[in-house]
């Protein structure tokens, strides 16, 4: 698919073949920019990617790594991607050959990794400690992959010894990406079309998930005390959170965009829900966030005046809710660390579904560990008031709504699109219609969006507008100061029609903006 791709106009000015600036034909529908946002705006991919290099503060705990990091700082070239750069890199590329060809049969006999099914997986994610102890494997039992973990640890420490950091290894058809986070090494081996920076973002998410369960404080302390600690003891039961997160990363555009989707509600309904929660909670001290989610979408988010939530933290919260059936059974009181908010400590979350007959999940996050009963009482009041005002029905109706297909928008050329409002870190897209309604179709579409996203946000040459045509569809990506738009068209669409369709989409979004997005940032 990639080879047959015909790239029409791909330059940073976004000029097409006729030398005409297509943006001139596009109407500008910048989203309403709120004075304040409840979510940290994620401008672009870069703000995520800043995390790609190892975090120096996180490294301080480990002597070896701290030393390694000192050298790294002195070394002028830390990216070992170009084999011609220096000796270290050359030795690395030799290693990559070894790991690619000869070492696997040697190490892997009689192990899971010899299994055809295991080998055919498109994407593997491994987590290990800097001492080489297995922590997690996406496929197969990590116990049976010990030797493979040994190889990964050897690779990382061999390159680390020379004061360099291994970030990625590129072989024919397979990409190896490493992320070193203090005492933890994360590695991804994939045969997908994702880029190094996209995979790095994903590994960062996985790392955040672990921090969210343990806090950075605890993670650092454990390895300071015992370098060869088996972290699986502490993570018991949390593997499913990582599994679930990796599936979400593979299947949901939200994490690619660094944005959340809101449950479509009229702004008066949403405001009424928000005000109900505020009225029941504003007397409670130390309540930091109240978050109502339903069907993996945000219903409302109320925050303490000083604080805003990062979308990456909200994704971890959604991941926790989506992967824990047990919250449906009883009121829970659970510690959760939100790494972007504060990686050092836990917030305490009162988690409960609104009612048997309303499957929206309310999370009340506080710093006070003794607040369970006041929060439990507040939640009862919230539910009573919402029920009296028939707002539970409104939420149920919105949750039961199958979603708007693109055909209802009157844009026949467009098959699907994603619109991200940058200032509020929210996005919206129609429900996938044929040919994307199947899981394979949806996967292919997301792959296309990934390619588009990567090209538009390429650190070396970011683009504003990109128009890609291949045999299956024509993709258009457009980034302005206010929004990002990614559209999949019929393969044979003309440029004029595509531009016309983009204008129609933007007009439609603008019209429904208040229902599709949360444009205010309510506080207690």
């Amino acid at each position, binding site marked *: 698919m990639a080879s047959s791709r015909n790239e029409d106009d791909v330059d940073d000015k976004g000029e097409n073949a006729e030398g005409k600036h297509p943006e001139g034909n596009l109407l500008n529908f910048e989203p309403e920019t709120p004075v304040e946002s409840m979510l940290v705006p994620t401008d672009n991919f870069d703000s995520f990617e800043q995390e790609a290099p190892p975090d120096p503060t996180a490294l301080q705990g480990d002597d070896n790594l701290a030393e390694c990091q000192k050298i790294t700082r002195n070394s002028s070239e830390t990216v070992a991607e170009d084999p011609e750069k220096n000796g270290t890199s050359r030795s690395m590329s030799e290693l990559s050959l070894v790991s690619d060809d000869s070492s696997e049969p040697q190490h892997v006999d009689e192990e899971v990794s010899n299994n055809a099914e295991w080998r055919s997986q498109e994407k593997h994610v491994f987590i290990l400690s800097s001492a080489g102890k297995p922590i997690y494997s996406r496929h197969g039992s990590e116990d049976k992959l010990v030797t493979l973990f040994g190889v990964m640890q050897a690779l990382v420490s061999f390159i680390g010894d020379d004061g360099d950091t291994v970030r990625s290894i590129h072989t024919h058809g397979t990409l190896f990406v490493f992320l070193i986070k203090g005492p933890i090494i994360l590695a991804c081996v994939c045969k997908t079309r994702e880029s190094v920076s996209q995979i790095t973002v994903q590994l960062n998410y996985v790392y955040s998930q672990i921090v969210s*369960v343990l806090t950075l404080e605890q993670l650092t302390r454990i390895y300071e005390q015992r370098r060869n600690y088996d972290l699986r003891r502490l993570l*018991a*039961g949390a593997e499913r959170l990582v599994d679930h997160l990796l599936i979400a990363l593979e299947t949901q555009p939200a994490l690619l965009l660094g944005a959340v989707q809101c449950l479509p509600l009229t702004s008066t309904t949403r405001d009424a829900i928000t005000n109900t929660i505020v009225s029941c909670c504003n007397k409670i001290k130390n309540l930091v966030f109240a978050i109502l989610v339903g069907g993996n979408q945000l219903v409302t988010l109320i925050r303490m005046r000083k604080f805003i939530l990062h979308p990456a933290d909200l994704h971890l919260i959604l991941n926790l809710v989506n992967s*824990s059936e047990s919250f449906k059974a009883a009121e*829970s009181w*659970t*510690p959760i660390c939100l790494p972007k908010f504060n990686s050092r400590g836990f917030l305490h979350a009162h988690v409960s579904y609104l009612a048997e007959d309303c499957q929206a999940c309310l999370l009340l996050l506080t710093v006070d560990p003794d607040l369970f*009963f006041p929060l439990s009482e507040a939640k009862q009041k919230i539910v009573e008031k919402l029920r009296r005002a028939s707002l539970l029905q409104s939420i149920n109706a919105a949750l039961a709504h199958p979603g708007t297909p693109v055909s209802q928008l009157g844009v026949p050329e467009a098959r699907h699109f994603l619109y991200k409002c940058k200032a509020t870190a929210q996005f919206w897209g129609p429900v996938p219609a044929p040919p994307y309604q199947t899981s394979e179709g949806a996967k292919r579409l997301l792959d296309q969006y990934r390619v588009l996203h990567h090209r538009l946000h390429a650190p070396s040459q970011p683009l504003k507008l990109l128009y890609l045509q291949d045999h299956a569809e024509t993709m258009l990506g457009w980034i302005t100061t206010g929004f990002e738009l990614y559209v999949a068209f019929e393969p044979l669409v003309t440029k004029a029609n595509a531009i016309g369709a983009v204008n129609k989409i933007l007009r439609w979004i603008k019209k429904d903006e208040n229902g599709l997005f949360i444009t205010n940032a309510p506080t207690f």
Partner: protein
Amino acid sequence: MSGADFKVVLLGSEDVGKTSLMKRYIQDKFQCRPHQNTIGAAFASKTVSTRGRQFVLGIWDTAGSERYYAMSQLYYRDAKAAIVCFDLTERVTFDRAKQWITELRNHEENCKIYLCGTKKDVVDDGIKASAVAHERVLQYSKGIGAVYMETSSKTGLNVAELFQLIADDCVLPSSNERNESIKLHSSKKSSSCCLAS
């Protein structure tokens, strides 16, 4: 506002069936695998009648995973009763139960302890043998002044009985507590105290 008259906490290793025990008692339901481990702790309450009066038992079902041990005190603090669970077919869970009891004795002197051997049905059906001799557990529980019960959340064996016994015992005026008249207020008061602190 404490939400309940008596606080009861469920403790024990992971996968011994604390959540199942609570589910059987509260909802009278049993769900076979797959069960997800509890995250943090879950709270549920149930009204029981004992000695002709109604009381609300507030039950905390804690997570068994090791990472929550550090904060378990948060959950068992001020508990009137603790059900320390172990899996009859897993020896290590009994050893862990003993550790829990030691910890409780050190931190919550007034908390009554109910040692609970779970998954009795597995032993009765001969699927797995009991890993700890019944007499030894009895002897141990007598030694520490705890009640010992064997339950099955699958069949419901002894589950309601266990909680009823706890309710009966909690209402009994004991030397450590003052008296019934305080009960209604005391639990409210004591917990609002701790909330303010």
